[in-house]
């Protein structure tokens, strides 16, 4: 939390201190400073749960943030970009979230090298830029699924037209070495062999996107690793293997959207496949409809997520010896810590574009859980949660 506040303060100071510099920078066009900020208030109407960190009290420090971006152009083809983000919420990283060199030899091709955001889904690389999307909070049933959001490596993007369709293809490759942040904990992790491809196609108001990404995760859960090793030595290989936290994670996405001056439809369908036992599989989607009556946008949205583990039944017999009884009971206890999780979120919200760079938003989200709650995602059961809560939010979005 200390770090979050430090980065928040640092980004704020840089942002406000740099405004006069930005005016000067425009003159020589080499250095451009810009940024964005969000002030988000939230209140959950249920004392027995938390959702995206919000509880039964009014809070401003879960999603509020400020970010500053500097672009320096060496030549027409080569530039460097850095983005510093100061987040108030503990579930989102703060610090230098982007730092990369861009090589753009022509309008069609762009190659980036450095620290980048992972473009898993439509808004994965712009999660923090609330001004960029209509919702106040992105549909969590879809966007709270990737345990990490940046990587260090290279990405290449090529755009071309087929008839009047604009086709954009992107590929990336690199690694991640930091931590997996889930609601209940933060775990050191490395992801190697991380790569992905995605293609989007746009024509008139239509746009479609398909994406695939995968990486080999090495997660620091020494208790699980040691217990798994112990079970394997005793011959309980299936149970031992299930506890191995390391394995490939794959992400799949399909998206279809339509928009015109009056309304929009946005939708994404996703699937996450965790090859190790304690990394879940996830199926999810959302669909949102919006109506524009300038300068307002009214929207409704429905999202659903199903998280499930491939629970391997206990091979360890009870009643043979005290030692085995303890092992069997421990294994059963561990299984309960990785519970399946189904929930859906229904949103009703409004966005008011007050100025060309400032928008206000108001949103209500009804969260409904269906069965057990894993507590590793946005929704956390504090005890006796009745599976139904409403999150009320107001927000200010600013880009500068």
């Amino acid at each position: 939390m200390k770090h979050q506040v430090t980065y928040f303060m640092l980004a704020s100071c840089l942002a406000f201190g740099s405004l006069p510099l930005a005016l000067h920078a425009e003159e020589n066009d080499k250095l451009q400073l810009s940024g964005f900020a969000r002030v988000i208030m939230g209140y959950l109407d249920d004392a027995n749960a938390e959702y995206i960190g919000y509880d039964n009290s009014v809070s401003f420090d879960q999603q509020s943030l400020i970010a500053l971006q500097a672009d320096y152009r060496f030549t027409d083809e080569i530039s460097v970009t850095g983005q510093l983000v100061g987040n108030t919420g503990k579930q989102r990283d703060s610090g230098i979230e982007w730092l990369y060199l861009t090589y753009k030899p022509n309008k069609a091709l762009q190659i980036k090298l450095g620290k980048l955001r992972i473009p898993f889904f439509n808004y994965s690389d712009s999660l923090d830029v609330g001004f960029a999307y209509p919702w106040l909070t992105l549909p969590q049933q879809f966007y709270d699924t990737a345990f990490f959001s940046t990587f260090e490596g290279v990405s290449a993007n090529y755009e071309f037209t087929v008839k009047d369709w604009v086709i954009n293809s992107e590929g990336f490759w690199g690694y991640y070495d930091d931590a997996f942040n889930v609601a209940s904990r933060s775990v050191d992790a490395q992801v190697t062999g991380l790569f992905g491809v995605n293609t989007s196609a746009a024509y008139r108001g239509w746009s479609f996107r398909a994406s695939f990404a995968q990486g080999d995760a090495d997660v620091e859960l020494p208790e699980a690793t040691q217990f798994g090793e112990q079970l394997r030595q005793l011959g309980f290989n299936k149970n031992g293997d299930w506890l191995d936290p390391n394995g490939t994670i794959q992400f799949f996405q399909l998206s279809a959207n339509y928009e015109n001056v009056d309304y929009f439809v946005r939708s994404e369908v996703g699937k996450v496949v965790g090859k190790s036992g304690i990394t879940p599989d996830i199926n999810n989607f959302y669909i949102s409809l919006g109506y524009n009556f300038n300068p307002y946008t009214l929207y409704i949205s429905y999202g659903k997520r199903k998280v499930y583990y491939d629970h391997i039944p206990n091979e360890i017999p009870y009643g043979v010896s005290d030692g085995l009884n303890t092992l069997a009971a421990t294994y059963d206890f561990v299984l309960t810590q990785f519970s399946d999780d189904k929930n859906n979120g229904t949103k009703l919200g409004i966005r008011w574009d007050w100025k060309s760079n400032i928008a206000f938003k108001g949103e209500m989200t009804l969260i409904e859980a269906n069965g057990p709650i894993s507590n590793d995602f946005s929704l956390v059961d504090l005890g006796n949660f009745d599976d139904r809560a409403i999150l009320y939010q107001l927000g200010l979005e600013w880009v500068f």
Partner: protein
Amino acid sequence: MKKYLTLLILVAAPFVHTIAAAEGIIVVANTTDNSIQLNRQQVRNLFMGGVIPYDLTAVSLPPDNRTRVLFNTKVVGLTEARIQSYWAQMRFTGRKRAPREVNNESLLLDYLKESKGAVGYLPASATLPKELTVIYKID
């Protein structure tokens, strides 16, 4: 008096909208290639940072400019708010940059005249210097 004023505004409002919508838009380029003709989708792609078959650079007017509002409605097919949010996403993910903005139509004409390959949109009634060619027109 207030009542009459309100009534007048209510009666006049649809006409204001009709007059604005009736005005055409031309898209002009500083090019020596008089054969270049774009369709609506290509103009939209050009101003939204997408690729088109010609080496042209879009130049825009400011967000509150009336010609820009007409251009957004008739050609791009998106609200100004949506266009601004699109550019925020493009900028902060390092994908694309919004076109350069020039303060008004008269300065835009001056800029286009001086800049080879530059493309801008103007009211259909604008008087064009000889350096500029109309590459798209919509009523």
